[in-house]
């Protein structure tokens, strides 16, 4: 499933225009500079506020090129876990124009509102984005998360 139509440009990285200009000039010097005010919170509301999503990485790492899994906790705005949702995942490195080296998938619901995201792998350090298209009952929404991957794992 291609999520791009669901994710307008304004949504993808949350960067102000001033920061974008600064970023553009920074890119001339270093292609890998990460925007300073990137939103790297792993829990926030989906775009239209229909869900609250918590992305849980492994406790440590993960190392670059290490296959691993995340957990996704999906709830309604009032905190009620949302079961039987279907979630499509896309992501990659916005500054390099490529996706994940693998095709991660939400494979199963582990407990009410808790889902396994398997097949995750970061092939290099830097800024990665993770984009979810969520469907539960009649509600659908999208959510975007950013992580900075370092040599010792995700910057926390």
């Amino acid at each position, binding site marked *: 499933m291609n999520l791009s139509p669901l994710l307008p440009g304004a949504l993808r990285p949350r960067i102000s225009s001033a920061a974008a200009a600064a970023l553009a000039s920074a*890119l*001339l*010097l*270093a*292609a*890998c500079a990460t925007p300073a005010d990137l939103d790297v919170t792993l829990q926030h509301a989906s775009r239209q506020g229909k869900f609250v999503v918590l992305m849980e990485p492994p406790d440590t790492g993960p190392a*670059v*090129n290490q*296959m691993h899994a995340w957990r996704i906790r999906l709830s309604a705005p009032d905190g009620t876990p949302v079961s039987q949702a279907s979630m499509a995942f896309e992501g990659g490195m*916005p*500054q*390099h*124009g*490529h*996706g*994940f*080296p*693998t*095709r*991660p*998938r939400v494979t199963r619901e582990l407990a009410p509102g808790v889902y396994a995201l*398997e*097949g995750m*792998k970061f*092939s*290099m*350090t830097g800024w990665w984005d993770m984009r979810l298209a969520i469907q539960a009952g009649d509600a659908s929404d999208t959510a975007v998360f950013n992580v900075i991957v*370092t*040599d010792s794992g995700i910057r926390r």
Partner: protein
Amino acid sequence: MTLETSARAGAATLLTAALACVAASALWLAPDDARAAPRVDRWSEGDRSTLASMLLSRLPAPPADPSNAVEARPEAIALGRRLFSDTRLSRNGQVSCASCHAPERDFQDGLPVGKGVGTGSRRTMPIAAATHGPWLFWDGRKDSLWSQALGPLEDSAEHGANRTQLVRLLQTHYRADYERVFGPLPSLQGVPAHAGPLGTDDERQAWARLSGEQRDAINRAFANLGKSIASYERTVAYGESRFDRYAAAALSGDRAGQQVLTSQEVGGLRLFIGKAQCSTCRNGPLLTDQHFHNTGVPQRDPARPDRGRSAAVAKVQQDEFNCLGKYSDAGRDACQELRFIAADDPGMEGAFKTPSLRNVAERGPYMHAGQFASLEEVVAHYVRSPKVALGHSELAHAGKGHAERAPIRLSDEEAAALVAFLKTLNGPSR
């Protein structure tokens, strides 16, 4: 100019000040030998972290391949070592694995495309540390070292052998050693001398006439042949290079140790992790992201463009010798790479594997079909960033770069420094 070759080098006054400062500190710290004061290279915290991540000493032990249960057994390694250089494993009795992967030549052949019983279409790949990557071959059409080893044996341009011929060779020449590792070889009573699913018309017909049980038993012994060879290949490792000694010295503050690289080579290293953008894909101790990229390398035969990775995904998914197949020793959960393969990534059109840069200077010609004779040509390619015949190049084009990535711009001196640095990555491979 030795002390500071960063992107800020244009600021002459700053540079002069830095020179004076560093020279003064060097004098102060080494008063007994001021005339031979060793060069001091300054690295930022970020650079130091990058240098540390590239050290060969950071490479973990070869990861276990759960699809090959015998890979650590000395008997399997010894058997694989003998098989690796046995020319009987070929159609004409003249081609072994070592014919192209020559141990004395960094396990490669120095040719643009491999030459076995015929002429191949891609460059012979190195073997050292190959087991650290999830995908084998330039297009990643195999998902384990043992499954990879089976491919050339039956390829009509490489060994040109066939499955029953190979299993009969095991029976005739390696029976005791094989059975010590894998148990009894199958009976070949009534099995034709030459049969296999990928051979000549006659061989394919002979293969089709075998019973299902016969084919399965032969397939298993054939897979075990690959597992032996892989067990040996897994032991082939890279050794420390001058770069590793330099980086260790730079990180520990060992000034004398830093002189193992010249100022030009250090300048090349700065470019490598900086504006030349090499370390974007050439990362970690093996200097590779183990992935596939289209960088617009010219097609060897424009009339028959090579689609690279995009044409290989279905092959590895359907391969009877993959991680999920019946000849694999792995459970389903251990086959994550195959289960979560990126099967529909448009960026894989015309994309090829990023090989390790270790020993790269010993390994021309370069790219997946030996398109470039020298490292100078390789660097010039990345700067030129030509249009591609197939797919989409990840390199930005000068003047109208991607939003994401700046074009790679290098002066002649910088290109020469980068090449000089690449030549510091040589170490023993055995």
